């Protein structure tokens, strides 16, 4: 690498600092809102930081609604879906990357086509289906529609494709079963991609709103994003509580990100999206 001139360095730091401020400041403002009194959130000119932080807003969330249940439900649902993706997406991706079989391209295109369907288009038929199964207001009802998705499979396929075929042939000659080849030859090599997959899936499901809204029928089964709607009045938003809930909503995804971020660029770089 060439040595950077001081001017160029200053320029780059300024650019990155400004961009980071733009991305982070609004979120800090959300934290600020969560610590304001209701009056401060509605004050004449926006309050940048509360005079005395109202940590009690967080306690109020739990007092006003079964917020503990919301957190558990969100963790169970997003966790189970993420787990399911980690099981199925690499397996299916592996098949599309390394096997030749009739209708392969057709099936792959049919799979990718599902990326193009907005969720609410499927929502009513899914709702009728879940109602007929008696799965409304249950965890299986919340989880089933999202067990796999084309994006995750595509990501894994891209990642597995560059793995040399020789590794697989060698294992076959050694007499390993197909499932074993997948488990002990392919899967261990996909760790960075699995981290990326886990993060994407969890973040996406954790924030999902429409399906838990229609598929739950008791407060105790709601997830956090749906539960948050309880804190609004008919004609106005209770900002302090909504913001406090949003902060809580944000924490797990941020933690997960901190743990997986070191895999992040590598994981994506190796998917062949170069």
């Amino acid at each position, binding site marked *: 690498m060439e040595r950077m001139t001081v001017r160029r360095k200053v320029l780059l730091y300024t650019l990155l600092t400004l961009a980071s401020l733009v991305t982070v400041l609004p979120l800090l403002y959300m934290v600020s809102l969560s610590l304001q009194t*209701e*009056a401060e959130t*509605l*004050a*004449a*000119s926006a309050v940048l930081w509360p005079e005395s932080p109202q940590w009690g807003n967080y306690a109020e969330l739990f007092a006003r609604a079964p917020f503990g249940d919301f957190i558990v439900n969100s963790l169970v649902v997003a966790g189970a879906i993420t787990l399911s993706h980690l099981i199925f997406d690499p397996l299916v991706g592996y098949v599309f990357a390394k096997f030749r079989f009739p209708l392969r*391209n*057709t099936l*792959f*295109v*049919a799979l*990718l*086509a599902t990326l193009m369907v907005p969720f609410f288009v499927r*929502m*009513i*038929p899914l*709702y*009728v289906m879940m*109602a*007929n199964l*008696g799965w*409304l207001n249950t965890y299986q009802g919340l989880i089933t529609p999202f067990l796999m998705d084309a994006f995750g499979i*595509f990501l894994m396929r891209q990642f597995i494709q560059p793995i040399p075929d020789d590794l697989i042939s060698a294992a076959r000659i050694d007499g390993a079963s197909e499932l074993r080849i997948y488990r002990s030859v392919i899967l261990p090599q996909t760790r960075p991609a699995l981290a990326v997959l886990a993060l994407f899936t969890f973040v996406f499901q954790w924030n999902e709103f*429409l399906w838990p*809204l*229609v598929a739950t*029928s*008791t*407060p105790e089964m709601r997830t956090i994003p749906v539960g948050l*709607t*309880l*804190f*609004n*009045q*008919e*004609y*106005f*938003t209770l900002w302090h509580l909504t913001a406090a809930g949003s902060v809580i909503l944000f924490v797990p995804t941020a933690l997960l990100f901190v743990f997986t971020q070191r895999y992040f660029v590598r994981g994506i770089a190796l998917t062949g999206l170069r």
Partner: protein
Amino acid sequence: MPAHPSRRDLLRLLGAATAAAGVPALSSCAGAPATQSADPGTFTVYWNAGHDYQAYRKVIAEFEQAHKVTVNLQKYQWPDLRTRLLADFASGTVPDLVEEPGGWVQEFAVSGNARSLQDFVDRDGQAMGFPSDWQPVTVERNSYQGKVYGVQLHLTCNTLLYNKAMLRDAGVEVPTTWEEFLEAAKKLTKDGVYGVALNQDYSYMWPWMMQAGVTPYDAGTGKAMTPLEDAIEALQFQADLIHKHKVAPVPVTGTDYSGPQKLFSAGRAAMILTGPWDLDPIRKTSPDIDLGVAPPLKHKVQATQAAGVSLFVPAKASRPELSWDFIKRVTALEVEQAATQETGMLMPRKSWAELPEVQTDPVIKVFADALPQAKDSSQEVRLTGRFGKWEEQLKVMYQQVIIQNRPAAEVLTEFAKTAEGYLK
């Protein structure tokens, strides 16, 4: 990169998808009544998240005791409640009782999703005072083909809220007509304070329309927004407050109704035209504002728009007797009285308007006195079954004039012409 799909692949895909289409459309195969709670011990009610009053909690406790059921009170914001309800109608699993924001009762009566309550009214109406004790507009807006389908729970209307100190300082009398209103707004606009703040939501135009004597839709003649020139005048008057006289800020497009209230609470607007729902946030955030409430303005007539929520029972609800009993309990005079004491909400019973605490409260009394002048804005439209489209187009039309400053004459004429086409 993905293997790029060929035309043949897409055709195959389409073929596969059409083959799968052999399933029934939206209706579930279950024709029998089905209530959401598979558990017969649960009674499911959809409620607005902002209406979870103590007074109603007490009714629920008594109801649970009397019928040995558990009430599952599901609270939603209005748009979410509607999304949920339509999914329920599609699947056939419905709640026992639904609170609605006004207008849905007739819509769902027309579509066959609401149950007629006429049999219960015939039986119990005398004893509970329905319909005789309800303001007439509330009975009419919940009926279809001569039958009652819903019972009004709250009845509200728009009037004028003003900042007493600001009016005093500017030496302005409380306006009663449009001319006085404009003059007052001009005098009140100064130093970062606007004379008035208008709402981005189209429904706030109705009091003006009604004061101008406009009929939104006349099913008999098939005409919309008549007399058109009065409707244009009313709409242009509102736009002129913003763009010509500059006595009001441009409303921000959005999804809530709290813009004017926030400006009023912040001391940035001296007058707003709104309903009782804005009283609570104003008092909470700005207890030092000396709040004045005045009757609706008068132009050709003194009038305002009726609003407020009603209750109805889905057609497929399995225990209509229970649902009706809930309605009776929650609309009793004592409950209305308790809810008003708790929240200041306005109620549909005529006898409620006579209560001493209503008559002696300077704020509630103004609203209560305005209720008999309140009119429903869209009843004739709802009965055509094209209410959704009408609302969508109203919203666009209103914002084009109010926010984007397009001439009311042009936009409203176009709106009326289109509406007359699809409402027929």
